[in-house]
């Protein structure tokens, strides 16, 4: 490369943009009560679940798409989406050796080896391809500890009582427009149950892959930690490059009982669209955890780098006395990406504490908003919140906004909010480059300094990856 400007450095193509050529069973486009029934019957679901879906569908019909976020996108045509797509293979396979090699290869290419020989030694993986889970590793080993880790479809069949007891109890089906849609048509996702007193012996993770072009993905995850239990869970997401937009509307519910803890980390790298903003995933996600017992603990860590649109507010309802909620977020937007993301910390019980650390990085023509609510209820005596929201701007076309909302009904509580904005300049990058430091590493040095507080929260295996991912995403954005 000669006297290339940093801007000339070609944008690194999206590494996960390939399509797997595999025969897929799809239902016809469009949404109706019949489609909801069809999805349920394809999965041979029990009556309670069909009823849950139908109630949600009817609620959804009465609801409006939310318009309060700082996001601009054309109206979504819900009749132009396929609500169920599954790679054609008869039943979920008992052994991975029977899984279509093309699927194994797909995940291997994405850096998620599933086969017995190659899989990560301390991480159990549930791999979801389009609408269905194709494999879950280490199920037996986890079962020895009483830990259930499987796809939610399997959980519905094998542990219907647990699913019925908890599904929709954290996020009711009419919580919001997208949660209602998900409740009606969700296809698959992960289910985790950690029984009383058990510390999950390995990291759990789900890897979501959208493959089909016109399919929506509506996964549903439910994690329950009984008294004194604890688990760390990580989800990753990628999708091929298509020049149309695909809808992804997920729901994640966490239930945490007395002295239990769930640490939930996300590395979101859905296809973001091209440099002109064509294509990319519309990501509307509802994530919420309830600290139901005293001294329970939820920690959300997210690294959001993909999607054309991100609408996502992982939240904590702190009911139990002395329960703790945390939210650590890095949201990066480039080109024409838009993100409106943040959290809600709802303090109900006494002496509940929450921490919010949000780092927004906006490059290109993108827009990146932090939106957060800290609510202190009348019974939350001695509640404490600390929030820190920092923005980093790259180039002069990007926008960053912070919308912190604070509502307190309890005078004996404290809420602290700090915010800052900084900018990476071409001169700074040139300075580092002129000292022998390559572009990618230069950006990564600056960005990782900025994100350190959040990356420190990621499971070790993924922290270094996150650093690299951000640097890749920013290539070509400064100059």
């Amino acid at each position, binding site marked *: *490369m*000669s*006297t*290339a*400007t*940093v*801007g*000339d450095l070609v944008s690194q193509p999206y590494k996960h943009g390939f399509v797997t050529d595999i025969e897929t069973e799809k239902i016809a486009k469009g949404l109706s009560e019949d489609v909801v029934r069809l999805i349920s019957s394809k999965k041979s679901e029990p009556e309670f679940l069909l009823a849950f879906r139908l109630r949600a569908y009817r609620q959804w019909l009465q609801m409006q798409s939310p318009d309060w976020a700082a996001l601009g996108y054309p109206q979504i045509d819900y009749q132009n989406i396929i609500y169920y797509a599954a790679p054609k293979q008869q039943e979920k396979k008992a052994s991975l050796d029977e899984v279509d090699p093309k699927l194994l290869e797909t995940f291997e290419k994405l850096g998620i080896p599933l086969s017995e020989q190659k899989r990560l030694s301390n991480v159990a993986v549930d791999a979801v391809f389009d609408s269905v889970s194709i494999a879950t590793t280490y199920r037996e080993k986890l079962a020895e500890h009483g830990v259930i880790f499987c796809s939610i479809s399997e959980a519905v069949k094998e542990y219907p009582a647990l699913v019925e007891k908890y599904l929709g109890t954290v996020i009711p089906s009419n919580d919001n427009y997208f949660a209602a849609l998900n409740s009606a048509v969700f296809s698959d996702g992960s289910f985790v149950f950690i029984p009383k007193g058990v510390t999950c012996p390995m990291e759990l993770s789900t890897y979501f892959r959208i493959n089909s072009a016109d399919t929506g993905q509506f996964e549903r995850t439910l994690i329950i930690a009984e008294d004194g239990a604890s688990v760390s869970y990580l989800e990753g997401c990628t999708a091929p490059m298509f020049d149309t937009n695909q809808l992804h509307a997920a729901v994640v519910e966490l239930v945490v009982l007395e002295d239990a803890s769930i640490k939930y980390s996300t590395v979101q790298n859905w296809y973001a669209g091209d440099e002109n903003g064509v294509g990319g995933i519309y990501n509307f996600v509802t994530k919420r955890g309830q600290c139901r017992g005293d001294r329970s603990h939820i920690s959300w860590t997210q690294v959001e780098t993909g999607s054309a649109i991100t609408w996502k507010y992982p939240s904590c309802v702190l009911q139990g006395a002395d329960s703790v909620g945390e939210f650590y977020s890095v949201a990066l937007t480039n080109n024409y990406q838009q993100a409106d993301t943040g959290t809600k910390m709802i303090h109900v019980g006494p002496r509940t504490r929450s921490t919010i650390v949000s780092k927004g990085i906006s490059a290109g023509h993108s827009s990146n908003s932090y939106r957060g609510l800290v609510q202190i209820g009348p019974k939350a005596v001695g509640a404490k919140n600390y929030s820190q929201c920092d923005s980093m701007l790259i180039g002069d076309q990007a926008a960053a906004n912070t919308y912190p909302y604070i509502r307190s009904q309890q005078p004996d509580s404290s809420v602290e909010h700090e915010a800052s904005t*900084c900018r990476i*300049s*071409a*001169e*700074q990058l*040139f*300075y*580092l*480059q*002129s*000292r*022998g*430091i*390559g*572009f990618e*590493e230069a950006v990564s*040095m*600056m960005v990782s*300094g*900025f994100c350190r507080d959040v990356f420190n929260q990621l499971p070790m295996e993924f922290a270094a990856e996150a650093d690299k991912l951000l640097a890749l995403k920013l290539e070509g954005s400064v*100059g």
Partner: protein
Amino acid sequence: MIRPDAPVLLEITGLHARVEEQQILNGVNLIVRSGEIHAVMGRNGSGKSTLSKVLAGHPAYTITEGSITYLGSDLLELAPEQRSRLGLFLGFQYPVEIPGVSNLEFLRVSTNARRAQRGEEELDTFAFEDLVRERLKVVQMDPAFLNRSVNEGFSGGEKKRNEILQMALLEPLVAILDETDSGLDIDALRIVADGVNQLAGPDNATLLITHYQRLLDLITPDYVHVMAAGRILRTGGKELALELERTGYEWVDQELANLGREPAEVL
């Protein structure tokens, strides 16, 4: 030290460059051999910093004509980071601040990039600390500066010392020091000059961009060049600097006029 048979490190031929739509360099010619110290002088705005940034590979400048050969290869083919790894160093007139990046880590990554190019092993944090403590002595800098962010909140003089510290670590073959003497107090000027003299040797070369004889009293140049309107208008020995001190740059206008250019047009 002038040795006619010394290898040529840097050769600039007919260099023209512009930034945005503005032509700034108008045919620079310069040959630098190992062991030499060159002083580059000239009025404000004559193109000295531009020349130095073009050499370092700043992306804002477009080369419209001419060539630069460095260690026998085409310099313009190399990315800025490759130039540094190959021993080209620019001490900036205005070093930027980089909040959030630790100075120590920055110096280590930078030094290791150069070492890797030279086939030397990478220094881990401990080995590097030893090296950096030794090199700090060259500029008599307080180790406390290592624990701060790169240049953040450094005074003007402290930034310049940090530049020389980088030079001491990178052991460049060609060091371009753009007004490293500006903003230094009297003691610091002596320290920096001593540092540059220590680092200058028979196998490397130094290009000192400066406005002041007081630096050249401490670092004796083999050549003095006067830049005007984006070219080297006159080259002489160290006595040329002394002459400038007496006469100023009045003659430059006359000489440019002789070249058929209006001074106003070139400013």
